[in-house]
């Protein structure tokens, strides 16, 4: 039996025209159907040539059901109409019968297409998938082709930076990612060689003399800022005055300065509050900005902070070009720089912000990045085993991490209890953690730091017997403590876990709480915990008081052990004022011993800083007076 019908496209229910509705006789068997997928008008025009059309149409339109049967003769007439030349005709089969293509061909003169329910859908899905695949492959091919046709600029260096600067103002910058830009755009007055940080060398200042609290610096002539303005003593005065007034960033390094005077176009005099032997060393990380920029871009009394936040104009080896927020900063070589570039130094530096350590590692390994900082140690050691990479290690970290024991809170306010923890700590476990790349510290200053007494100080090792004796002497029993750990660093977490397991051997429970740095430090500052974990490193190449003033002197923000010892504070002041090296070293040794004897800090480990560096980049050395400083102008790219 054959009949005609159509599907209403708007409402998605079936209406059947030209057929009479009856219940299905048996099961789901349906009659053969001749399908029209054309418009109502077309269908009705066709049906109008069939007998009894009006009757059928009227009946079916009110019913709207699915099962149909047709009057004898109707179907043959409709079939005849449908098979007229030029008419798109499709034939359906009963659902419970296999498709008979020969029959279709016989009826319509061509093979049936688009009617096999499953096969056709799959075919279309596959076709669509193939289309997507082709498009994707095209993108891959084009992408690869574009890379091949447009190879990386001859001497462009892509540096995967662990973070994005919040400012590139040298008076405010005090975080790694900020200093990566400012230290390469702004020149300081002095500098140092990485292998001799104790020897301060001329840079923008060609020489200096000191007498008591007065320092006189002779400045380099013929130096210009990147906007073409000449560099003079007025710029030095403006820069230092501005920095001291803003009092952020690395201003603590020059807090000894009382005033700055211009003695001539290329002579500047700096007076300190008290004699300060480290001034020249500490100026090595103070970038000099243009006085005219400060004046030109100042808004109210902001000292042009708004402008310097995202603009730069230094005398340094690289020019600031652009800052794509959230993405990258681009620097290009300053062709008019007065200083010496390494042969094949990068022409362009792309400082790409990549916060995720694993992504930095993958990108370095896959040569998307030429250089990356803060790559996890495991990844560095894995990458350097691959061809095309080499390991660069160097001294930078003083302690990583240091565990501070709160001297204002019980039970860590008890010196014997603190000593018990220091003695119980498993220092060897740290060395294992760092895959052997570690030195166990003997105190706050590393032996490689100029004037450090560490080499002659007694080693600190795990001594459980001494620890138990100290715990007994404390008469505190076995109280528990809470330790807050900044969550971003696995080394810190390991240090805290190590303390936990070490203290457990004494029966002391250490509750480790991991939180973002700003929360963790808030907890220890507000005496909500007995223990805090943080790393130690400083920016001065030879001033030990920079470390003491930050971590040990009374009231210092990072004095998270709450160490308060007026004698120590006095000693630190004396160190800065002592120009005789031997006397100064003796004072440093006393200060060193005082901090060690306080048992307020567990210096867990001192790993060297490790970098996996591609072989086509040479000249990189670890800067001992930085957090992760890189002098781009000293690198050479050979490709």
């Amino acid at each position, binding site marked *: 039996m054959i009949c005609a019908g159509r599907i209403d496209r708007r409402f998605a229910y079936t209406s059947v025209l030209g057929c009479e509705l009856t219940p299905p006789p048996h099961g789901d068997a349906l009659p053969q159907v001749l399908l029209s997928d054309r418009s109502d008008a077309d269908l009705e025009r066709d049906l109008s040539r069939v007998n009894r059309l009006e009757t059928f149409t009227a009946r079916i339109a009110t019913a709207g059901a699915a099962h149909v049967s047709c009057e004898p003769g109707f179907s043959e007439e409709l079939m005849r109409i449908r098979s007229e030349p030029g008419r798109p005709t499709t034939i359906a089969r009963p659902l419970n019968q296999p498709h008979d293509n020969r029959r279709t061909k016989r009826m319509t003169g061509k093979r049936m297409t688009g009617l096999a329910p499953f096969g056709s859908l799959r075919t279309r899905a596959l076709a669509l998938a193939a289309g997507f695949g082709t498009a994707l492959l095209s993108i891959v091919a084009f992408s690869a082709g574009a890379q091949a046709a447009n190879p990386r600029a001859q001497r462009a260096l892509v540096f995967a930076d662990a973070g994005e600067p919040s400012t590139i103002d040298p008076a405010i910058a005090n975080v790694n990612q900020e200093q990566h830009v400012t230290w390469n755009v702004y020149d300081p007055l002095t500098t140092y060689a990485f292998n001799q940080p104790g020897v301060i060398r001329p840079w923008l200042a060609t020489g200096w003399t000191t007498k008591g609290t007065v320092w006189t610096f002779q400045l380099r002539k013929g130096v210009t800022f990147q906007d073409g303005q000449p560099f003079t003593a007025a710029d030095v005065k403006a820069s230092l005055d501005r920095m001291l007034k803003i009092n952020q960033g690395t201003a603590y390094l020059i807090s000894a300065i009382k005033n700055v005077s211009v003695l001539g176009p290329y002579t500047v005099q700096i007076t300190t509050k008290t004699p300060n032997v480290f001034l020249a060393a500490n100026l090595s990380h103070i970038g000099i900005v243009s006085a005219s920029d400060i004046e030109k871009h100042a808004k109210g009394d902001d000292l042009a902070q708004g402008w310097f936040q995202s603009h730069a104009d230094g005398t340094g080896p690289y020019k600031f070009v652009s800052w794509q927020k959230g993405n990258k900063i681009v620097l290009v070589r300053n062709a008019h720089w007065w200083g010496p570039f390494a042969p094949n130094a990068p022409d362009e530096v792309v400082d790409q912000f990549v916060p995720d350590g694993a992504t930095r590692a993958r990108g370095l390994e896959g040569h998307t990045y030429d250089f990356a900082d803060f790559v996890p140690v495991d990844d560095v050691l894995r990458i350097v085993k691959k061809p095309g990479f080499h390991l660069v290690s160097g001294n930078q970290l003083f302690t990583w991490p240091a565990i501070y024991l709160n001297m204002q809170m019980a039970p860590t306010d008890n010196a014997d209890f603190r000593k018990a923890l220091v003695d119980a700590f498993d220092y060897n476990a740290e060395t294992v953690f760092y895959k052997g790349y570690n030195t166990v510290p003997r105190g706050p200053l590393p032996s490689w730091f100029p004037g450090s007494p560490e080499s002659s100080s007694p080693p600190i090792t795990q001594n459980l017997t001494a620890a138990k004796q100290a715990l007994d002497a404390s008469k505190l029993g076995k109280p528990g403590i809470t330790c807050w750990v900044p969550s971003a660093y696995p080394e810190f977490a390991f240090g805290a876990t190590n303390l936990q397991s070490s203290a457990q051997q004494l029966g002391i429970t250490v509750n480790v709480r991991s939180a973002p*740095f700003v929360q963790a430090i808030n907890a220890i500052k507000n005496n909500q915990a007995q223990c805090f974990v943080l790393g130690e490193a400083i920016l001065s190449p030879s001033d030990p008081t920079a470390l003491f003033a930050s971590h040990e002197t009374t009231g210092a923000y990072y004095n998270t052990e709450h160490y308060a010892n007026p004698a120590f504070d006095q000693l630190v002041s004396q160190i800065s004022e002592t120009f005789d090296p031997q006397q100064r070293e003796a004072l440093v040794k006393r200060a060193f011993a005082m901090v060690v004897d306080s048992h307020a800090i567990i210096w867990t480990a001192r790993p060297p800083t490790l970098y996996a560096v591609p072989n086509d980049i040479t000249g990189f050395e670890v800067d001992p007076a930085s957090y992760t400083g890189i002098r781009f102008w000293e690198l050479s790219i050979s490709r």
Partner: protein
Amino acid sequence: MTEARRPFATSAVAAPLRPGWLRRATAGVRRQPAAWFLARRFAWSLVVLFVLATITFVLARIVPADPAAFLAGQNASQAAITSIRHEYGLDKPLDIQYINYMSGLLRGNLGISIRTRDPVASDMASYLPATLELLFASFFVYVTASLLLGITTAYHARGPFGVVVKLLTMAGTALPVFWIGAVLQLVFFYRLGWFPLGGRLGELATPPPQVTGFYTIDSILAGQWSTFVDAVAHLVLPSAAIVLSLLAVGMRQTQAAVMQELGRHYVRTARGKGMSEPRIALKHVLRNALNPILTVTGVQFGYMVSWVILVEVVFNWPGIGLYAYQSFQVFDYAPIIAVTLIATVVFLAVNLLTDIAYAVLDPRVRRG
């Protein structure tokens, strides 16, 4: 389901509860169900945003933290940190900070980011287009893939194709999105070298002149075809990570809805009349199955907004997800609240669009 979601027909129920002045003021709008519906939804959205801003503000500050310490940097002096606290108003009492923030919010001022030192609104203007581009690309692929796979597996639910697709998509859902992202990077960037590691464009590429902020569109507008290809290539892996992590739900929902419709009489009739199966599936079955799919798709879009944060971190995609991640780390309050509000606005908008889509797609809903 369809019958329960009649958005334009609910106004009459609540009418007696409204005060007289409100009824009179809104009488004109209420005569037009669609406009009344939209007006009510908009008003409720504002209430939700206000409540959410308050909750987020309180929650962010319940945790004692000192964002100034981050900004000051290592070894900073106490004076420097105090100066930063004062500069950003962090030394003011909490209630004053709240009043300042909310009054600023009413004026469209989202505050200043401590981390970037820029107004949050301008940060958003920088970061949002990147996120929207990734979201829209992922959403397009997700909808296409879930419909295609859902329909196809509805026909082949017990065949090998259906089983394989089911297993793969379920695995995608079971695995964390950042892990999927990392694996995609490992395979398609590191091993095969087919796609870039992350970012929106190559490291040395210059973005096209900004018109929409979408690199794909802007590069076409600028006629920069190589940039377009680069932008699309950078979209592939992050989009794939998002889509794989969500696909199972969309696909299974589509499959279930389609299978339900396939059992209906009109499908049998359509087949009986000789209509091609793709035509039945795409034009009729899908049309009837669309409402539940639409509901799930709307919800999935919400998840997609959440996943974007993780995916942007893994793929170094400079959008609001990465911005939020970095802000969360340092308790940068203003961006945290702003990102929360924007995510809520997006979610509310998608819900509204879903409701409107019901009416557009289903005449029964439209006619109440």
